[in-house]
């Protein structure tokens, strides 16, 4: 699997789970301060970003590793990403928002790279 696809799959997946995590009251409160919760609009866009990121990650896996391997790889990357985000949200929740933004950018950059190097 080529480097840009790999990077995209991982970055998009971690960003997606970070977004989905922050969309939950418990983790949002950990990240933004006790008692705060996302507004309905924020929650919707976080969830959308999450699902979008997962689908982008799936596309990267399929494009990079073919139809059969791609699905297996996607599940493996989701497992790794979900565990990473769990650790992030429990040990450094305030960094989670920065991680989300940074990884989102990385995902976009590697998507561009993947498309350009195709």
């Amino acid at each position: 699997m080529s480097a840009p696809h790999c990077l995209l799959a991982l970055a998009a997946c971690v960003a997606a789970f970070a977004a989905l995590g922050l969309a939950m009251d418990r983790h949002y409160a950990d990240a933004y301060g006790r008692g705060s919760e996302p507004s309905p609009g924020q929650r919707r866009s976080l969830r959308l970003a999450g699902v979008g990121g997962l689908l982008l990650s799936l596309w990267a896996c399929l494009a990079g590793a073919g139809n059969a391997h791609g699905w297996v790889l996607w599940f493996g990357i989701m497992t790794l990403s979900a565990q990473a985000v769990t650790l992030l949200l429990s040990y450094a929740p305030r960094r989670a928002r920065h991680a989300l933004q940074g990884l989102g950018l990385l995902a976009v950059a590697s998507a561009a790279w993947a498309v350009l190097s195709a």
Partner: protein
Amino acid sequence: MKGGFRQSMAWLHTWSGLLVGWVLFMVFASGTSSYFREEISFWMKPELHRTPAQPAAQQAQAVEQAVRLLEREGAGSPRWTIGLPDERDPSLRVSWLPSKPPAGGGARPRPLTVNLDPATGERLADTRATRGGDFLYRLHFDLHYMPAMWARWIIGFCAMFMLVAIVSGVVTHRRIFSDFFTFRPRKGPRSWLDAHNATAVLALPFHLMITYTGLVTLMFMYMPWGAQAVYKGDEKAFTAEAFPNARANVPQKAAGRPTPLVPIAPLLEQSRAHWQGSAATRVVVTLPGDANAAVTIYRDDSANLSANYASMVFDGTTGRLIETRGENIPPASETRGVFVGLHMAHFAGPLLRGLFFLSGLAGCLMVATGLLMWAVKERPKYAKALARGGRIGFGLRLVDGLNIGAIAGVPLAMAAYFWANRLIPVGIAGRPDREIAAFFTVWGLAALAGIVWPSRRMWQVQLTVGGMLFALVPLLNPLTGGSGLFTAAASGHWNLVGFDTVCLLLGACLLTSAWWLARRQATARGAGTQAPRRAAASTAPAAAPLQSEPALVPARHALGAAESASP
């Protein structure tokens, strides 16, 4: 059962998991290591570490070298096997069955194997006798020191329990989505539950897949009834129709007429052309030198998800194609092939293999946290008894002991296996069995010690020793004839780099756990005077995992018990 579907599923989950948890931990640990069994085997043969990392020859050239050696040493053998070099193993593996059955009969004759340099045909340094990673792979489903059938029934039974545990666990997990990312450290039993949930839910696709596919791998042994009913005992027909990889229908008995073997390189070319460029992975010659000789060439299907593979069978004297096998596989058979393939992960490249390995480790942690959590939850029930100077119940004591034996003992035994590989002298008789005996001896002692003294100190000791043994592997390696980390990196042997690095990381994890246990104990000791009160409190909300355990010891001391088995 006891009121409510969810509750009955929770009860089922606890018991189906607990009763077979220790076996499952060993199965997960050995299975996870099996993802890298070729790399483990390579590490355990330091004589091969200096060989070039990349296959340096074409397959045609390699096979010619192999045949030359086989004609010299394997003449009269009923079966030659040539393993062609590929990415995971660049050597040329040549093996042949001895022409005469070994004296003493009974057991199937073991093939003699030699590794060759594929370019020059030179015999690579004879490697030490070792089962390598194959021991851990076989341990995973054949156990050891018992007939394979028994082992597979035991493992299958445990796997079925595991399947029920997984499904009932998912059903009973009320907040599976809202608790998806939840992990609250330092909160006692709650933390253990979070860890169990995290390692289980986040790798759920893997766990479900690996358990079901594991059962499927041996499904005709566990559920032969359909086949028996349909084929009415005609095993030959069943094998021929259901297993595309079954041995080709070639003559097994020699005709007695010596006939020269046809050159194999052209047959390789022919197969490559037929398979539109796909390379071959293995060549098997039956009855070489006889009129009934046959050459079977197996396609390299390691990139396919399915475990089914294609092959072509040629007549060994004329080179005529007899049949092609394993192409156009029908859907159910292909499904079974994919299930088996997913379990073995033979198709996985380095990244995917690493992910499988991590998921397997998550499985080990899932089982371990489940077992430990049961003990942690059970302990407060004995608080009153302890306050009165009694002991915890036999059941809990047994679980504590078995937990140590499995969770701390299995890693310890694996590390001991690798150390034994380097420390047992080369050339002595029965060397592979000695390495294996080292594994079981260490495991047995660890388990025994754990059952006799199920204390925090015992955890610390075993985790520390295991951690040290693993962490020192990168030092042990170059000191005992292997290529060290930097040498291996320089020569491109990334499998060696990986092995040493993973051992170092595993050692670090084990040592960190031991250190963390010691820190918890120090905190508990600091509040030693409060221990009897804590022992009486059944649900101390701020109690850290195993916090109640050091409370046992000061409580005993406080009550003047004359026991010496304590930290």
